């Protein structure tokens, strides 16, 4: 059942939040052992929240547009008193003293957070295999990855454990798992959703967004969580955009650019799906043109210097002093080193070192400085494309979900699975992945719609056209 249907039925008194929560917990109990989706299920807190929703209904009050809807949270989002690990040993046992703004807003709209989902450690990965607590399996084929880094949040919705969930997208970490699990996944415009309470990976790229099984639910969740927040200084000044009321706007008269670089290297079945999507949009009245944005080739290189550089700075705070793990050494420096060496996994160490190197004396200009200039080029290139087009279209991923272990030992191969999603983050723009058909293996294919900053209403309307076809 969709999140909108659940909210409508709970609001109408046809079911209760507690009963919807019980369905969710039963679905989790049935498959979490096999799939490793949730790191922590907060039964007690969820029942408290659900009962509060039901009490308000019985008092004749309206808890909000997500009344009684169970929601899963990626475990890099803080919820007061609920264990939050970022899938890292270094934060094991830590319980945040405050909740993220997005969590407050979901609860404020009547939603019921049921637990925290698995991710690649500190959101660094594309398969959820770098989690210190084991990989998550794709509910559609448990021998395969769900994608990452928000793999647990994607799997939660794909397995019917919760109708909606939140993830975070730094280089594709919502869109890629959405594509691999057959879901709608949104990377909102940078600053549209408050990052307060999102544990930082790469602050100039990170953005929180929704997973849902359909376009309208994703739009509803984004409406709830978006909008200015004084607690995040990079938060855009405006209120949340109206998305649902534009869902039926269609694409007639829109110019859609089919981007050559966003198909390069993709499997033929993926290219075919994107071309079918282009035909669908054209059939709905869009003017589809083929365009080339050669600068997109440089996204991967710039991203894998900028994101690690920011991460090396953000993760300096895990020093064994204020939270989580401490491995005692003979002095403070030894304690820092022993704690970090024991607490971080290989992928996190790799990125911290890459970033430290890119920022270090003698290499700053050649690597980090150069990457920031490429970022400027990327923004200019997108701006030129949007001078011609209202939206862009391409693949979300080069392949469907891959086998667990297939890329785990080869960082560069893993990084390449983000090649189509990274440019949007570098430009601070918006994009959405929509399921569009299945490959030969029967696994879902996602197509990606991209738009300039603050173009979410347009993106959702186009996504709705693809969904309806």
């Amino acid at each position, binding site marked *: 059942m969709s999140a909108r249907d659940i909210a409508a039925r709970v609001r109408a008194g046809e079911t209760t939040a507690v009963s919807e929560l019980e369905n969710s917990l039963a679905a989790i109990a049935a498959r979490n052992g096999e799939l490793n989706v949730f790191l922590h299920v907060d039964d007690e807190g969820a029942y408290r929240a659900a009962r509060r929703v039901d009490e308000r209904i019985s008092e004749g009050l309206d808890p909000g547009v997500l009344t009684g809807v169970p929601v899963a949270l990626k475990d890099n989002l803080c919820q007061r008193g609920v264990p939050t690990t970022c899938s890292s040993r270094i934060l094991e046992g830590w319980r945040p*003293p405050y909740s993220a703004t997005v969590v407050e807003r979901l609860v404020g709209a009547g939603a019921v957070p049921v637990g925290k989902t698995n991710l690649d450690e500190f959101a660094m990965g594309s398969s959820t295999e770098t989690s210190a607590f084991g990989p998550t399996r794709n509910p559609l084929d448990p021998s395969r990855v769900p994608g990452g880094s928000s793999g647990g949040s994607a799997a939660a919705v794909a397995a019917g454990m919760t109708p909606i969930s939140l993830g975070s997208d730094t280089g594709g970490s919502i869109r890629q798992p959405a594509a691999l699990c057959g879901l709608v996944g949104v990377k909102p415009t*940078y*600053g549209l959703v408050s990052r307060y309470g999102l544990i930082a990976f790469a602050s*100039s790229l990170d953005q929180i967004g929704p997973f849902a099984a359909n376009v309208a639910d994703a739009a509803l969740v984004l409406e709830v969580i978006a909008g200015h927040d*004084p607690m995040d*200084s*990079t938060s*855009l000044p405006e209120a949340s955009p109206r998305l649902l009321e534009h869902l039926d706007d269609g694409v007639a008269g829109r110019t859609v650019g089919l981007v050559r670089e966003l198909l390069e290297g993709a499997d033929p079945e993926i290219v075919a799906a994107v071309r079918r999507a282009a035909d669908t949009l054209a059939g709905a009245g869009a003017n589809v043109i083929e365009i080339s944005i050669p600068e997109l080739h440089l996204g*991967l*290189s*710039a991203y*894998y210097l900028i994101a690690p550089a920011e991460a*090396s700075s953000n993760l300096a705070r895990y*020093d064994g*002093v*204020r*939270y989580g*793990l*401490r491995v*005692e050494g*003979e*002095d*403070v*420096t*030894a*304690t*820092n*080193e*022993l704690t*970090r*060496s024991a607490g*971080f996994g*290989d992928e996190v*160490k*790799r990125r*911290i*070192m*890459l970033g*430290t*190197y890119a920022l*270090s004396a003698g290499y700053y200009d*050649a*690597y980090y*400085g*150069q*990457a*920031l*200039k*490429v*970022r*400027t*080029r990327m*923004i200019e290139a997108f701006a030129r494309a949007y001078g011609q087009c209202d939206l862009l279209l391409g693949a979300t991923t080069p392949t469907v979900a891959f086998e667990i272990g297939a890329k785990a030992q080869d*960082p*560069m191969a893993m*990084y390449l699975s983000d090649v189509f999603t990274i440019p949007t983050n*570098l*430009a*601070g723009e918006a994009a959405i992945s929509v399921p569009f058909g299945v490959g030969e293996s029967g696994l879902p294919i996602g197509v990606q719609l991209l738009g300039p*900053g603050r173009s979410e209403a347009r993106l959702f309307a186009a996504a709705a056209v693809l969904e309806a076809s």
Partner: protein
Amino acid sequence: MTHPLTRDEVAHVAHLARLRLSDTELDLFTAQLGQVLEHAADMNELDLEGVKPTAHPFGLVNVVRADEVRTSLDRDEVLAMAPDAEDGRFAVPRIMGEAP
């Protein structure tokens, strides 16, 4: 302008990042990080003379808030989550030599 990454450089960077690596890790990371830097070399072929760097997509500057009294995090709750705390402070191993 760049050269292949060496094992010594990786060891130096690990020290800067406060990570202790085993010999096996050093070898592995030298090879893996070298690959990423090699891929990044495609940026060096560009003429980026005069291009301004972008550190933030919208170039926000000097965001300030009203100077109002607000509830802050509860000190005891924060310290309760620390590995060690004493007298309302985070406690760390001794950072100075023994007193004479």
